[in-house]
């Protein structure tokens, strides 16, 4: 370390999912008292989301295969609560570099707005579903798979009585399994990626350790339970007047199918929630397999910015188990950077496990490629940016007639990505559409710049 470090550095962790909790654990073990900021009411993140107090259900029913891990994380959160400055229900909506170093975090929590000065930052901001437009995708009753899962975990309810699920990632069989287990009626489970990709990946997937195998395990288990699982489907469309009434699709042979349903859960992989890293000034790199920009992260979890540390899906999709390992690893890197004594054996053990997981993850990504080919099937009338009601045709015309070559210019000209979600929902699809229209690789059209507030804040401070 070449720069002065305060004797008692203020450390903040953003996100109390698997990555953030493990990072907090390591820092408290070292005698530090980090601030843990979390939008959630209870720690656990999305994957191990806990129902509100009073609505608990048995962990086995809620988390299935991962009940043990969920319980361990929740126990850890409860044990940590008194050792850290834990701030639930708190959104970090702005991050600004501070002189001479460190950051100001703009937070909105139960006490209103608060500005917190920190020296170092661990970002464990998680991921959200990636969407792709298809006919009817904005109808009431269409959810993402993640939202379908949240409904189940947090509220103990399904998104509908007769549910169709569509996806392109390990989340699809997982949610199907959870819904089936919870007693929901599944009208269809449709995978838009070809079965061939998974068959090709099987030799490598067979090497997966325990929990990473669960996507495949759920696929098998789902099939065994007689779930209506179909792979390689195309031309997904939701029918309905005021709400979802049916789902239609083409099978791999081109035959049209239709099932009646009253809710659809559909999403196509995950995207890193990386706006905080963006505002903190981290450099981003394009990840070609999942086709998304993510903050640059060293194997130990260091960001390009010397005082930012990254862990979990917010900086590269790896799943919950990887997030725990990364949370632990990046906190060790942070301690090392603070000049604390290092545990080389522990670091090496984590590095080995993370390296192994990285190989398995590559196999998993190969099994569930992001279905960017579906972009060509998006009709010109289809809404892509639902916040602002911007159609695919408007985006394509901006490319061909208005010189839009880059995402921020596309946003300026069309308003796509300019609404409430700031392009978190439509950004990937819009980038793919722009790139396809220009016939250039998707990374060349760049990414939407993050802007505060990361999520909406009320004009009047709540009191």
């Amino acid at each position, binding site marked *: 370390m070449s720069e002065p470090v305060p004797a008692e550095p203020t450390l903040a962790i953003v996100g109390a999912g698997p990555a953030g909790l493990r990072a907090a654990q390591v820092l408290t073990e070292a005698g530090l008292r980090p601030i843990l900021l979390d939008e959630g009411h209870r720690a656990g993140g999305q994957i191990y989301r806990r129902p509100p107090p009073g609505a608990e259900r048995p962990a086995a029913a809620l988390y299935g295969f991962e009940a043990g891990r969920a319980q361990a994380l929740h126990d850890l959160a409860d044990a940590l609560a008194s050792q850290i400055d834990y701030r639930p229900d708190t959104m970090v909506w702005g991050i600004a570099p501070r002189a001479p170093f460190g950051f100001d975090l703009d937070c909105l929590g139960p006490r209103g707005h608060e500005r917190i000065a920190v020296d170092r930052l661990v970002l464990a901001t998680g991921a959200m579903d990636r969407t792709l437009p298809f006919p009817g995708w904005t109808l009431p009753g269409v959810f993402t798979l993640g939202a379908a899962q949240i409904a189940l975990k947090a509220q103990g309810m399904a998104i509908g009585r007769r549910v169709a699920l569509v996806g392109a990632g390990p989340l699809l069989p997982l949610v199907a399994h959870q819904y089936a287990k919870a007693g929901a009626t599944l009208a269809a489970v449709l995978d838009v990626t070809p079965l061939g990709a998974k068959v090709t990946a099987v030799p490598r997937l067979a090497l997966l350790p325990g929990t990473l195998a669960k996507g495949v395990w759920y696929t098998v288990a789902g099939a065994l339970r007689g779930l209506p699982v179909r792979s390689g489907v195309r031309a997904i469309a939701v029918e309905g007047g005021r709400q979802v009434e049916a789902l239609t699709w083409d099978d791999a042979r081109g035959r049209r199918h239709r099932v009646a349903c009253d809710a659809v859960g559909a999403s196509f992989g995950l995207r890193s929630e990386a706006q905080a890293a963006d505002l903190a000034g981290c450099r981003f790199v394009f990840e070609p397999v999942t086709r998304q920009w993510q903050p640059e992260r060293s194997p130990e979890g260091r960001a390009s910015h010397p005082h930012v540390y990254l862990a979990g899906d917010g900086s590269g999709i790896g799943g919950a188990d990887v997030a725990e390992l990364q949370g632990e690893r990046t906190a060790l890197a942070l301690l090392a950077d603070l000049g604390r004594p290092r545990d080389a054996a522990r670091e090496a053990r984590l590095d080995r496990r993370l390296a192994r997981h990285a190989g398995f993850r590559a196999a998993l990504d190969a099994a569930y490629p992001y279905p960017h080919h579906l972009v060509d099937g998006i009709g010109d009338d289809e809404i892509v940016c639902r916040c*602002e009601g911007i159609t695919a045709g408007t985006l394509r015309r901006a490319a061909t007639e208005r010189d839009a070559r880059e995402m921020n*210019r596309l946003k*300026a*000209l069309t308003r796509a990505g300019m609404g409430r979600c700031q392009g978190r929902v439509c950004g990937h699809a819009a980038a793919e559409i722009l790139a396809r229209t220009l016939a250039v690789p998707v990374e060349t059209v760049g990414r939407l710049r993050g*802007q505060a507030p990361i999520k909406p804040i009320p*004009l*009047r401070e709540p009191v």
Partner: protein
Amino acid sequence: MERLTVDVAIIGGGIAACSAAVALREAGLTVALLEKRLCGGGASGVNFGGVRQQGRDFSELPLSRRARVLWDGLGAKLAEDVGFEATGHIKLARSESDMAVLEAYARDAAEYGLDLQLLGANALRAEMPWLGPAVVGASLSPTDGQANPRVVGPAFARLARRLGAEVREHAPVRHAAHDGAGFTVEAEGVSVRSRSLVNAAGAYGGAVAGWFGEAAPVAPLSPNMVVTEPLPHLVTRSIGVVGGDVYVRQTRRGNVVLGGGRGTADSVDGLARPVSATSLGAMDKTLTLIPDLAHAQVIRSWSGLDGEMPDHIPVIGLSASTPGLVHAFGFSGHGFQLGPVVGEILAELVTQGRSASPLHPFRIERFAAWRGPYRSEGEIEH
């Protein structure tokens, strides 16, 4: 390295630069325009979007009056919906002394042909019953309005291209010089020879002037902007206040844009960023003006880099050191409305050496004796 030889080279890609490219092509001259990033993406594209004559320095009013005429036909000329609507611009008084300021301004503005209507508290509330109790009166400029700044600059750039201008984006200019026979402009990937040179480099206009031995103290200026989610239409006019600490308008889409105070300007990477404390302050001030917005959600904030002169009016005119060099920069936070007419004026200066509009107040020589840097502060009137 691409080499171009043209009649006129333009440094900068804002509205003034791009509209100059259009006007010069219309005058039959060949043009090369060099923009460091994307045309219309700087101060031209991220400003408040006010199309306002009211409240301007009187020396700017003749230009602003002339510009206002152009705004009526701008959408047709650019073949782009620029979102211009003459909603009126209303400047609010929050004290009797504010009202006295508005009365004095209205009196003097009449001499420039700008008709302003003074409204007392009752008349104002009859029209805008949603205004908060802090407001005691106002001055209304019915012919003013608002537009979508994000689309105007790019549309001018496209029109310039259609008319045959060589527009080069991502081409930051490293240096320009005059060798006695003409100008050489060295930009990334392209070198331009020209007979005339237009300096429309915004916050960097002073640096360009310096290459030709002319002093022009330009400070970075980064107005801080915030926008709400789309809301039902309420704010019928573009709103400013005496003192300039907050300004508000509602877009056609329904978003309420509010500005006030300053972001940070990073002159190294050339980017401006909003400051959250400033955003929260503008939100508070907006609520005192329009309490009904209490439940609105703010979805975004931003800033942009403009150049500000010590006397808050731009440099527009012929170089005092170098024949063939023409300046237009330092619009000090209110260049958007003027942009379309500045292009015409620049074309007049290049082709005739003079303009139909009075430019004496904007001459660069006013800073000839200036020494040292200049740091701007205070509010930007809107």
